[in-house]
């Protein structure tokens, strides 16, 4: 994982405490980072910039996120 500008400090801290959030940014050309880049997958914003090619991936990621949130919510409700 690479970090760039100072304004990402908060994100790094946030990410450390909440690793599931996938706060990811784009890598425009090799070696040039826009924000915080995860080695495993492109950032949400990069997918937005990627146009039609990025939309499907974003939608899939969003559905996965919603499912995961719903599952967590259900678990919490069951637990309580």
């Amino acid at each position: 994982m690479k970090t760039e500008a100072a304004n990402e400090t908060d994100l790094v801290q946030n990410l450390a405490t909440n690793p599931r959030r996938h706060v990811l940014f784009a890598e425009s050309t090799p070696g040039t980072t826009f924000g915080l880049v995860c080695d495993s997958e492109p950032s949400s914003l990069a997918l937005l910039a990627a146009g039609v090619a990025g939309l499907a991936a974003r939608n899939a990621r969003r559905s996965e996120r919603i499912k995961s949130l719903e599952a967590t919510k259900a678990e919490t409700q069951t637990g309580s």
Partner: protein
Amino acid sequence: MSQSHRRKVLLIGWDAADWEMINPLLQSGQMPALAQLLNGGVRGNLVTIQPVLSPMLWTSIATGKRADKHGIFGFTEPLSDGTGIGPVRSTSRKCKAIWNILSQNGLRSNIVGWFASDPPEPIDGVMVTDRFLVTPKGSMANSVYPSALASSLAELRVAPDSLMAEDLLAFIPRLKELDLKFDDRPLKLARRLAKAASVQAIATALIQSEPWDLMAVYFDAIDQFGHEFMSYHPPRMQGITEKDFELYQHVMTGCYRFHDMMLHVLLQYIDEQTNVILVSDHGYECGHRRPSLEEAKKNPEGCHRSFGVACLKGTDVKKNERLYGATILDVTPTILTLLGLPVGGDMDGRPWVEVLREQVKVERIFSWEGVGDSAARMHTSEARQDPAEAAEAIAQLVELGYIAPPSKDTQETIRSTIRCNKISLVRALIDTPRMAQAVPLLQELISQQTDDEWCILTLARSYLSLRKLKEIRPLLETLSPKLQHSAQVQLMLAELALAEGNKPQAISHVEAASANGILHDRLFNQIGRAFLQVERWQEAGDCFRKSLETEPDNPVALDGLASIHLAEGEWENAVEKSLEAVGLVHFFPEAHFHLAVGLERCGQTREAIAAYETALGLGYWPAGLHRHLVELYRPIDAEKSNQHKLACIRLARPTIYHADFKSKLADEPPPNPQAY
């Protein structure tokens, strides 16, 4: 152009993009895609035209014509059924756009999101209008041509509520500290970001799936982000709280970087036969000249800078060159030239042949209007406008501060819209300057509203240009006493006194203006020019230098300094300053004239002739310049000398074409070169 291979043009519009924002980002490697475009490409300033209102400007970009020819005068217009006002429509455009010209020549265009393009024209290709991006699902088929594509393209629209928090974190890293119930700025950001992402998604779909010769994509986000967030951009402005600054200072940088990411993606889809042109319609104040938040809301146009950006790269474009003196009016002529088509003689711009790799003899057609219209795929009849859609678009414009909320009295709203559009037309006319055409419009506007001080001042200025001197004082006396003492009125009175031959009175008015003025670059320039007229070179020079300190990209101040150098016999310095001035703005006849005089005095006759001919081509003092060129050509080219002699004779004949407004203008001779 050599057309052995079929050429294509990708035209990208970034509304309000400005080198002053871009340059530091390029230097720090934060806009790598743009850096890649510039590396081996061409860059330059792109001068805007007046008034600096995006629907007019993007229509000028797409037509190569000024507003009086293309007919788009503002953001809104009355609905055809008289029930209110709505966003300006493509049916109001009076001339062909580039996509019509290409259609009639068998070339295909894909147009995405272009300002004032709704309803879509049935062009050869695909047109997705600006309205499609905001229109409700039920009526979106009316905003796409062919309409069969509407439903599949609608799937590519990004809804603001589909954005995730991390999408916004690049712009607002401390988003989690905000309570959106009390601060709606992140939501505004999300709406603008979603719209830009929609344009990108649709463009990247069409660029692959639909064949094209011209792909034109327009993004309004830099301008819209600017109107909401530029005030928070570093350095912190007065009136911006430290907390707001900390929260929102990264938004504009994020916006430019996001555009760079989108550019990177678009460039992946082009081949080596494609020439890329990236332009903005105007710049946007981002430094110490930014208006306050309050002023910016009151007058959004005041945030705009005269210089936008132009970048070109491609197989037909020279490498690593600078483009000088380009205007937004040149984009369509340049695209036509790149695609091997003639430029309309009635277009107001010029093709950028100086940055094309091959020497091009520009082909011209008298006009594209009235030629091959049946194949141009223009509107045949006006489509009905849905008031619900219009209301949505109007609400966005109100939010941006571009227009006032529609009044309860619909008729008054319509009247006020018509008035605003007429004022835009006047501003377009006096920008050229065509005062004789502006006068009847101004008289009509004043008769409808006798206390409109802008109209009164502009009419007085027009009378001054037309040398209708007797009309001026009574008109100025109708202004409020405060305005009568203002710098701008004092400067006008100084010019009037000069025209009446009363130099001491002129000097006293210039001194009053100098004492009364709120000093910004334009006023420094006006005072400087007034001092020039009364031959107070030292004071004039001081004004122009102060003006340059405020605004370095300042052709009027540079030309003013050139005039002083000419007056003082410093020919080389005059040439240097004139070259800087015309390098910034090509349509500046007076500066070409001063350049010519300087070059002539330096003994560079051929270069001087070229500059005189440029000034002449821009309509500057035909009688005098033809006469002067007869003499300059005499020892080196007898034929040319005779041509100019004939032109002198033609000019001396009485005009019989009374519709020519120029004939109504007073023949005011500018300074003779012999005077220097």
